[in-house]
């Protein structure tokens, strides 16, 4: 069962659709986004040069830095009168990446989420328990609109208060769970603690994303909940969740190629790689109006799985993400750049530039992030309450900037190993 007929398009039909949409997109960004006009002019490319999908790799790349440099609306290709919603990814105010959606964009996004839900076996009779956060983060509202589009019932419960979540699942008859995979494990533990068994719930599937996870985690989640667990991929720059999603074959995520053209490139040379080879994932949006992006470098590392999928969908599949080409961390679904933590630390008087970030994930638990800060002569106080107030203050500042809770630990001077050259500041102990 597919949500839309495009999911089974033949190769030739898909290519002709992509060609038409790519040509339109290139024309749209050239005419409406001065950033792209300048970029194309600099590369010596005219919209008329792009005549088919095969010309894609002649276009220049777009990076996250481009979005930051043109904060907030610099890459929008539609006037604000057409923009009906804004989302933004975490980061310091000046560094947030801001995206805008037209009415058509919201409709398209909802339809793609509906495809994902159908992949998980959903119909309009299902009750979607949506624990993704609502707000600037794309997860909550993205899932929400897709559920309504499908005609299923959405419970906009958002994250937090695990015991209440389980009670709602039980009382409201939730059938599909949507959240981060680590939160799914966390909720499963809570369910166990409450003495409730999966048989007492109606849950049958879950769509999990916004952070990296593994086959081992899938096995744990499926066993603990007695459900099918599917991986969903997305990023706010491209749209939000629903850029790609797994089907019940659970072997790679189908990229919705009628809306997003994927490429795998060598991140050093920028050269496209053939299907099957691992490299950096790059997307070009070919239907978006608010903020279409040309060859956007995701910094995510994966490969395109060659061959056909048994489910009958013809869209190519990407493998689970295996890493990043930069030092971005994903903590409980929030993108965290160590440089942002450093900025907060350096804004606190007396904090030395020696710090370390320890990321961990307890078994079946959520990600934790500890920021170790060396106590300096200037920071040290004889009074415990002063030291505690200082670490609380840093915790609050980091939380407000990054949108993710951390614990700050004061450590002794010179206890953080010094290194030659680039300091090893991140210790990621998560076994994903």
């Amino acid at each position, binding site marked *: 069962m597919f949500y839309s007929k495009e999911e089974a398009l033949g190769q030739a039909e898909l290519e002709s659709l992509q060609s038409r949409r790519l040509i339109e997109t290139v024309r749209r960004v050239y005419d409406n986004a001065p950033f792209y006009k300048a970029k194309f002019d600099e590369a010596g490319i005219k919209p008329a040069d792009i005549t088919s999908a095969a010309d894609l790799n002649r276009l220049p790349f777009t990076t996250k830095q481009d979005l930051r440099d043109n904060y907030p609306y610099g890459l929008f290709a539609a006037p604000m009168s057409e923009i009906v919603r804004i989302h933004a990814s975490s980061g310091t105010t000046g560094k947030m990446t801001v995206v805008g959606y037209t009415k058509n964009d919201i409709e398209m996004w909802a339809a793609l989420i509906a495809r994902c839900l159908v992949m998980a076996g959903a119909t309009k009779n299902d009750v979607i328990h949506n624990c993704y956060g609502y707000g600037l983060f794309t997860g909550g509202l993205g899932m929400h609109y897709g559920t309504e589009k499908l005609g299923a019932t959405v419970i906009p419960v958002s994250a937090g208060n695990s015991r209440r979540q389980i009670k709602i699942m039980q009382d409201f008859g939730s059938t599909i769970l949507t959240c981060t995979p680590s939160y799914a494990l966390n909720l499963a533990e809570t369910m166990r603690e409450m003495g409730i068994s999966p048989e007492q719930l109606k849950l049958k599937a879950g769509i999990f994303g916004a952070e990296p996870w593994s086959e081992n985690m899938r096995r744990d989640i499926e066993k603990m909940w007695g459900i099918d667990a599917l991986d969903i991929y997305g990023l706010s720059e491209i749209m939000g969740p629903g850029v790609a999603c797994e089907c019940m074959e659970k072997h790679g995520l189908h990229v919705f190629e009628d809306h997003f053209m994927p490429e795998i490139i060598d991140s050093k040379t920028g050269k496209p790689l053939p299907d099957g080879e691992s490299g950096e994932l790059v997307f070009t949006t070919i239907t978006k109006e608010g903020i279409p992006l040309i060859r956007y470098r995701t910094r995510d590392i994966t490969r395109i799985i060659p061959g056909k999928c048994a489910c009958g969908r013809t869209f190519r599949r990407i493998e689970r993400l295996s890493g990043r080409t930069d030092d971005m961390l994903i903590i409980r679904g929030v993108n965290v750049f160590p440089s942002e933590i450093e900025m907060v630390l350096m804004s606190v008087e007396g904090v030395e530039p020696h710090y370390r970030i320890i990321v961990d994930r307890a078994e079946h638990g959520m990600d934790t992030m500890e920021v170790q800060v060396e*106590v*300096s*002569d200037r920071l*040290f*106080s*004889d*009074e*415990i309450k002063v*030291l*505690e107030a200082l670490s609380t203050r840093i915790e609050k500042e980091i939380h407000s900037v990054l949108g993710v809770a951390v614990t700050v*630990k*004061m*450590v*002794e*001077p*010179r*206890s953080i190993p010094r290194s030659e050259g680039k300091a090893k500041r991140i210790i990621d102990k998560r076994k994903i």
Partner: protein
Amino acid sequence: MKVMQLSVFLENREGRLAEAVGLVAEAGINIRALSLAETADFGVIRMIVDTPDKAITALKAKSIIVKTTDVIAVEVEDKPGGLKKVLDVFHSQGINIEYMYACVEKNNSNAVMLLRVENPEAALEKVKDKVKILKAEEVYEI
């Protein structure tokens, strides 16, 4: 009349306290009083030693953070109600005591308490005629 107290920052992990105290011992420094305030992550040792400057040099040489704070040393009668009597004097003068601890040895037959107050200078002026205050040298030599 003030006594110099050394405060040392230590991470809360096994053996760390012994290491720090060991450094002081190696330098031939005698600890006259010591208290330890701790949280889950770290601790602060507060101590009075016979030769503070020597102790500071020894600790700093090992990159240990040490800070000095002025405290007041008072004699307390070693009998029920002895401490209460002293504290009542401070209370009646409106002086808030942030923390206090005791010396290892007695002075004559009296116990010696070390008190940290916000403004030791002003506090001493208010209480010096009402309680027995010890000089720094007296504390070091107990």
